[in-house]
């Protein structure tokens, strides 16, 4: 080696490290590295300089137009917030996206996974870095925001609400960007992920700039602060953003985890937590007068959530991977209870049913607490909900059957997820084509359209559609019954794995006792 030792290496290590170094030891390594990289990067320097320049321009414009009065600072605040929006909703998530992409391209992510960092910690580090960048950008714009307060027209609660929302949206957008970047692990998904993310973040930023720039944002926040619905709205926004961030983090974690590691349990726990948490929110933050409207909507949205998750759960590989099998609880009862949380499409179907049992149970228990009561809900709503569920059961069964015909690799899990919505399209289109080509026109609903959920539900909801309703419910129930042996098989696989682990532990224990 010809180069001399760099001063930083030549300097002795002090016996007691400074506070900053000791504090940094407590931090997520990804957070430390991302911030180190970001502040050294050109993008950060350019955006900070750009934001400072815009700051000066806004300050000059505001100063030249200032005529005193009670709302002098509103324009400055709007302009400052509008400058901050693209930085937080586009630049920061974009940097997280680029960082994740470069780690994937260089195989760096594998090196990280070889360390003690778990997938969720990697994602958390990147979200933490987004928060640090939020603070850095905010500090750049803080003189302007402070001036806007001093010029009056914007009070401290308004500033606090706006900045809190900005932080929440920034983190949510970053988690979306990280999840999108990880789709790039599948080469076919790379351009779609890039387009989706650029379009999503770009339109969100532009929309937000327009919303803030028009002055509507401050008007809405002002109304919200005076309104009795402040708790409901802010908690809804906050809970939605947290749930979205958690879901995106789970998606990112699933992509970072090895193909054969357990990618399902997090999602299934998320799904089964959604109904109790949603109802808890309703009964905590929603005023009693609004519950008659909010509870049915929440139940319907939760049903849709269950159907979307169902598509993913029933399109997984069938069997437990060797790694998951090796970590099944040894206790037979515990293993049986954990079965619906473990990967595999048979157990996924069982989890889906468990979810709807939980949702219906919670709705039955909690709905009477509303003014109208569960049993007095509109008949059409009950019919639409149950028919939708029946169709979900029919199509998930068909999708699961289709997944079973495909090879047992991860690629075909994704393939089946694309094919399932196509099944619905085919179920709708084929009878229509038959009508057009054979009968000569689409005149009326007939039993050939039974697999068209939209038209059939429309007919079945009417009082005259009792026969159709009965048929759809029977078909849906029949599909679930047909799935019963498979679900039992899924349970038995877990209990067998637990028994194998117990047997292994029993053989290892005497051996160690002899060695001891």
């Amino acid at each position: 080696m010809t180069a001399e030792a760099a001063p930083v290496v030549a300097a002795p290590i002090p016996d007691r490290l400074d506070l900053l170094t000791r504090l940094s030891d407590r931090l997520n390594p990804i957070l430390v590295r991302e911030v180190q990289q970001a502040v050294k990067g050109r993008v950060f320097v350019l955006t900070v300089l750009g934001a400072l320049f815009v700051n000066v321009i806004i300050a000059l414009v505001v100063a030249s137009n200032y005529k005193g009065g009670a709302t002098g600072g509103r324009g400055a605040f709007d302009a400052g917030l509008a400058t901050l929006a693209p930085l937080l909703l586009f630049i920061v998530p974009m940097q997280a996206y680029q960082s994740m992409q470069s780690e994937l391209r260089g195989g760096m992510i594998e090196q990280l996974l070889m360390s003690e960092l778990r997938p969720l910690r990697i994602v958390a580090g990147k979200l933490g870095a987004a928060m640090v960048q939020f603070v850095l950008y905010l500090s750049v714009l803080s003189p302007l925001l402070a001036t806007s307060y001093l010029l009056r027209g914007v009070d401290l609660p308004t500033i606090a609400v706006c900045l809190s929302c900005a932080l929440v949206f920034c983190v949510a957008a970053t988690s979306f960007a990280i999840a999108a970047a990880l789709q790039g692990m599948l080469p076919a998904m790379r351009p779609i992920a890039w387009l989706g993310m650029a379009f999503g973040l770009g339109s969100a930023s532009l929309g937000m700039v327009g919303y803030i720039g028009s002055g509507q944002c401050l008007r809405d926040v002002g109304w919200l602060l005076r309104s009795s619905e402040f708790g409901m709205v802010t908690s809804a926004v906050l809970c939605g953003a947290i749930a979205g961030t958690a879901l995106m983090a789970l998606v990112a974690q699933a992509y970072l985890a090895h193909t054969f590691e357990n990618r399902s349990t997090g999602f299934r726990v998320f799904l089964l937590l959604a109904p109790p948490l949603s109802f808890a929110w309703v009964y905590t933050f929603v005023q009693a007068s609004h519950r008659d409207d909010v509870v049915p909507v929440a139940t319907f949205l939760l049903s849709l959530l269950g159907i979307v998750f169902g598509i993913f759960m029933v399109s997984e590989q069938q069997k437990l991977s060797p790694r998951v099998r090796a970590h099944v609880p040894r206790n037979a009862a515990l293993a049986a209870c954990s079965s619906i949380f473990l990967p595999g499409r048979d157990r996924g179907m069982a989890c889906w049913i468990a979810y709807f049992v939980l949702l219906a149970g919670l709705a039955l228990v909690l709905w009477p607490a509303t003014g109208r009561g569960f049993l007095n809900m509109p008949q059409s709503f009950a019919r639409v909900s149950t028919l939708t569920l029946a169709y979900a059961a029919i199509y998930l069964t068909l999708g699961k059957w289709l997944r079973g015909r495909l090879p047992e690799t991860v690629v075909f899990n994704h393939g089946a997820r694309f094919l399932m919505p196509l099944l619905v399209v085919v179920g709708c289109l084929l009878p229509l084509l038959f009508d057009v080509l054979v009968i000569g026109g689409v005149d009326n609903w007939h039993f050939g359209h039974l697999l068209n959920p939209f038209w059939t539900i429309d007919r079945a909801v009417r009082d005259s559609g009792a026969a159709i309703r009965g048929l759809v419910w029977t078909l849906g129930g029949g599909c679930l019954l047909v799935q019963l042996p498979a679900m039992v098989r899924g349970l038995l696989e877990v209990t067998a794995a637990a028994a194998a682990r117990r047997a292994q532990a029993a053989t290892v224990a005497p051996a160690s006792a002899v060695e001891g």
Partner: protein
Amino acid sequence: MTTPLLEVRHLSRSYGRVRAVDDLSFAMARGQITGFVGPNGAGKTTTMRIAATLDIPDGGDVLVDGVSVLVEPRKVRQRIGYMSDQFHPYANLDVLQYLDFFARAHGLRGRRRQQTVRTVASFCGLTGFADRPATGLSKGMGQRLHLAKTLLHDPQLLILDEPAAGLDPRARIEFRALLKELAAAGKTILISSHILPELGETCDSVVVLEKGKRVVAGTIAEIQRSVQHQQAVQLRLLGEVEAAEKFLATQPDVGEVAVDGDRVRFTYAGGDEEMAALLARAIGAGLRITEFGRIEADLEDIFLQTTKGNLQ
């Protein structure tokens, strides 16, 4: 009897119809350097990735220090350092920051982390480059940084996939010296490379793969003995090459004879006693011999003899 540090048991892995690894078994003792040799597509990288917990076998298992990569991958990761054939350092980080990041990722804290980073940087000859951007290093220094990162958590087993690929001769020699130092420090090393003479100089043993199957495994001396059913012998003469050729053709245990300038090479099935007698007879026959000796098969010869060049 000590358990092997790395034990590959009936490992199989397919990608679609291609069987990348097929019922592969071998073991590595502690403190050994084992060369992993095979044509492109033989299954070397797949096996290494499975051993590094980055891939999963369809069948079989790999045990590192008795711990299964299938059952307890996290425990395995604490015991191994994997140096992949790709190295793309982070932008906007210097060498020391890069190592510091990985030290943090391995859970090292405070003084210990700083001390480890400096020790490893110094061991790998990176001290003079500590404040250089990691992306601005030469290929050779980049590989040193890659190796340094692999050493930070003091793993027992190092899995190095083509570490010398693309290095110039000096960098290769320096890198080889580093590996020898690591072996002397008690590390067990599994290394794949296409530069066979280098492996021959560095490794205690080799495993030769072809089409995912083990062709031969053992120490280089053992393999030499097993592949050389008939030893090769070389004579060097002062003139009289044709006479030597005729003489050898009449001798017992002598197989094929080939002439190359002033050298005559032949295969010989006899033992040491018979060979001494042959030499005496040759001298007695008036051949003026300046050199006489066995030709030891090197790793390249072993590789060519044991593999058929089948690609998949």
